[in-house]
């Protein structure tokens, strides 16, 4: 799901940066207000966790690969705005030092995997687990479903960004300049990989960690400022 350089037109990349920059700013404000010195190392740990999770490529039928992300887990434990920052840090490091995801596409990739993924995943998690104690079954079920829906929402966002390229940016004779595949190809390709493969992996990781923490360390859930506020 890491869009490389060259697949999105410079205009699309600029637009995605323009969307992501205010989101980063907002996340900074929320973190400044809600984080304590104790929360920062947890974000570092979870951001590094997500970076490592993304290294586990899983084969997808058709000869490609996909991977889980772990963004919904960060959102569950520290809140969705912290997830945006933790995920963005991992994505920037991947793009800069490993060439995984383009430099021009950092805005797009952070929007997809840093914003859409954890916010959608967290929303679904809260919907399912609202009002339950931290060790309740609905917590890990909500986490698993949230992880699954979140990563697929992000894959859909990436598919749309890829898929609008050929109709918007082509030569006078209609030859695509950037991503050559339209929505009719990008959406099925991205969704098959994530509905069937990466989504279930994300669900197992997110649900598994939340089940473990709910059972043995339920106090960690109160690091999420949105959980604290409810109490």
């Amino acid at each position: 799901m890491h869009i490389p350089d060259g697949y999105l037109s410079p205009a699309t990349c600029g637009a995605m940066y323009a969307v992501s920059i205010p989101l980063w700013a907002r996340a900074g404000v929320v973190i400044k207000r809600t984080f304590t010195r104790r929360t920062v190392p947890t974000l570092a740990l979870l951001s590094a966790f997500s970076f490592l999770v993304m290294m586990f490529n899983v084969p997808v039928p058709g000869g490609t690969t996909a991977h889980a992300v772990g963004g919904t887990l960060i959102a569950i434990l520290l809140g969705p705005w912290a997830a945006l920052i933790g995920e963005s840090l991992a994505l920037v490091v991947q793009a800069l030092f490993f060439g995984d995801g383009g430099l021009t596409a950092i805005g797009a990739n952070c929007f997809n995997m840093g914003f859409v993924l954890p916010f959608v995943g967290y929303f679904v998690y809260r919907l399912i687990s609202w009002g339950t104690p931290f060790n309740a079954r609905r917590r890990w079920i909500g986490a698993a479903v949230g992880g699954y829906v979140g990563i697929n929402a992000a894959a859909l966002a990436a598919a749309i960004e890829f898929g609008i390229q050929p109709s918007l940016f082509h030569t006078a004779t209609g030859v695509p300049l950037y991503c050559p595949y339209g929505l009719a190809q990008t959406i099925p390709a991205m969704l098959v990989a994530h509905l069937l493969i990466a989504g279930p992996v994300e669900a197992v990781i997110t649900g598994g960690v939340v089940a473990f923490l709910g059972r043995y360390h339920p106090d960690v859930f109160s690091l999420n400022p949105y959980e604290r506020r409810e109490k």
Partner: protein
Amino acid sequence: MTRSRKVWIPLAVLVALTPLGLLASGTAWGEWGTDEIKGLLGYIPHGLSRLADINHIAFLPDYSLPGLGEGFAGQAVGYYISAIVGVVIIVLLTLGLGRLIVRK
């Protein structure tokens, strides 16, 4: 070991397991290099070829150490180094950013 140290153990386990991520062959959809694009389409879209290789900072491209070869062992070593380097940079970056932003 204190509890706060213990939480880093799962991370070390994940680092140790990272070469498993190399077993799946093939590129993620939409992440092909220009050679692969040429194989798929027969041509490289003009704008794509212009932008594809602008990143000259990546010193561990595709989580590999150039020069270690294409064999699994060489790839695994490159993957280990990448995992450790990535984790260290991300942790330092996050702690640094936290120092700047978080005052409580």
